[in-house]
């Protein structure tokens, strides 16, 4: 009885394994196929149509890039992302806690207001912001780019962090308050430590958003402040495909690193609490 059914089972298992391998290979092709052309382009010193592969490969463009403007763009982009992340955290952690916990009126409205800039097409919103920022002398400045990034970053952060704080059971804080802890003490000793993984996840999202942000940076910052995405755009419209490929590859590194971290800290409870007030 057991033998035959066991055999049939292992036959099915082999079939499944083959199917899964096929799936992995397919996913690999879909994900890494387009990327491979970036890698090839970054090493191509001479590559004319109709050749399938570059006629001449080398490190010429990598060397050119690594000593030139791209490093500055990378540095500026990272600095902007760090500042945006810190400012966003300082604003949204207390705000999200208040939204999640305290009986304040118009909660849905407050959450909606943060969503508002996303409700309209990005380009007009950013064009308008640009003229506004130039008027107050922030156009083309570091501060202006930080501000325009925060328009988007705050939405991510407020919505996710409110969900994170809501996923911390309220009775845990009541237990602390019941024993004599003040609201502030309960926040720092109970809510904040328990929300930390979620806050880290949300922070990573904000950091990535700022690092990858393009439209606002191009309109507000360029040509005085360049981040990596804008730099990449400018080089690729200049038909320097090698430089664009290299910056695209560089741009992917922090993204991949942070997504690996994100997967560690993101919990499914956060999603179930998302957007609840």
């Amino acid at each position, binding site marked *: 009885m057991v033998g035959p059914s066991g055999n049939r089972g292992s036959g099915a298992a082999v079939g499944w394994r083959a199917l899964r391998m096929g799936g992995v290979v397919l996913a690999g092709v879909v994900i890494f196929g387009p990327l491979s052309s970036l890698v090839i382009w970054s090493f191509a010193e001479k590559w004319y149509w109709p050749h399938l592969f570059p006629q001449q490969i080398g490190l010429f463009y990598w060397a050119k890039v690594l000593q030139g403007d791209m490093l500055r763009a990378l540095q500026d982009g990272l600095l902007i992302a760090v500042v945006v992340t810190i400012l966003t955290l300082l604003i949204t952690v207390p705000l999200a806690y208040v939204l999640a916990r305290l009986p304040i009126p118009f909660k849905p409205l407050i959450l909606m207001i943060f969503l508002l800039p996303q409700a309209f097409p990005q380009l007009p919103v950013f064009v308008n912001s640009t003229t506004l920022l130039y008027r107050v002398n922030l156009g083309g400045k570091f501060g202006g780019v930080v501000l325009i990034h925060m328009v988007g970053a705050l939405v991510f952060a407020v919505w996710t962090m409110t969900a994170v704080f809501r996923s911390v059971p309220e009775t*845990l804080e009541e237990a602390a308050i*019941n024993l*004599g802890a003040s609201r502030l003490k309960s926040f720092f000793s109970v809510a904040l430590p328990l929300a930390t993984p979620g806050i880290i996840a949300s922070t990573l999202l904000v950091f990535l958003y700022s690092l990858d942000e393009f439209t606002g940076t191009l309109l507000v910052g360029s040509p005085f402040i360049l981040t990596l995405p804008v730099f990449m755009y400018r080089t690729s419209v200049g038909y320097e495909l090698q430089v664009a490929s290299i910056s695209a590859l560089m741009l992917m590194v922090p993204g991949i690193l942070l997504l690996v971290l994100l997967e560690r800290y993101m919990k499914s409870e956060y999603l179930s609490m998302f957007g609840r007030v």
Partner: protein
Amino acid sequence: MVEVEVERVRKTYGKVEALKEVSLQFRSGALTAILGPSGCGKTTLLRSIAGFISVDAGRIRFDAEDVTSLPPQKRGTAMVFQNYALWPHMTIFENVAYGLRLQKAPEAEVSRRVRKVLELVEIGSLADVESRKPAALSGGQQQRVALARALVVEPKVLLMDEPLSNLDAKVRQRLRGELRRLQRQVGITAIYVTHDQEEALALADTVVLMDQGRVVQLGTPQDIYLRPATAFAAEFLGVSNQLEGEAAAGRLVVAGQTVGYGGPVRGKATVIFRATDIQMEEPSAPAREGTMVLNGVLEESLFLGAHYRHYVRVGSSLVLADSPAPRPPGPVRLALPSEKVQVYG
């Protein structure tokens, strides 16, 4: 030891009146159980006493002190929650020590008192409480830690919100006994909210039965069980049989049969009795003084282990009757001691 007094307390949520002028006294040093179905207002009352809910009207006093407008931090109550509410990021020791550290007790005293209370609640080995987190413990053990966390601060009042409902039946039975022992030993005023009538009867010195934001009945467990004041109380306390009838002077018509009746109810009546109080006799047996007798037909019997449960058709109603011995189906006479039959208007 503190006496808790609740006076004409009201609380409304939108259109729902959670508490409708509730007045109660919780004796100092006693364990009072607030019993009722979900939504009866028992938890609202408990949370009002803890200070998590501010009441719309009325006063709450701990002895002479009016605490109605005090925030929860200043009331000196300690609560045990249904879901334990232990802090998962702290060790067992840190959980219990939290309240003492808030009071800025010296660390040597904190350590001494935490260990003492953990021994009191019989947490078992104290060796690794400073390294283990609550998640390493079973549900029953976690609730012991939660109890220790509440008791260690020597609160004026111990509040318990269905503390045993999340545990499985066996653990619940054992912890029930231990809770009773602990409360007596510490001599603390305790208020215990539950929807489990057996738990309330087993644990409490006084049982408060609530329904729809009102106190329905207050008394000793024996009182409540033997003399339920209303049809709701009787039903909630697990009375198995409820028949509609018509009462007049000297007689009662129930399920189409007329029986003797000396009580005050007139007109439409609800007749209530327990399955365990019924004696089953042959229809030809001689009638006895002081019993109410109904004739019926035994349709079905189930063996429940401790006893048999019989389904007896009386008129158009089905009456449940328990007996230790089996009985063949067929005509049967149900005899009920008059004092075990409750009639409500």
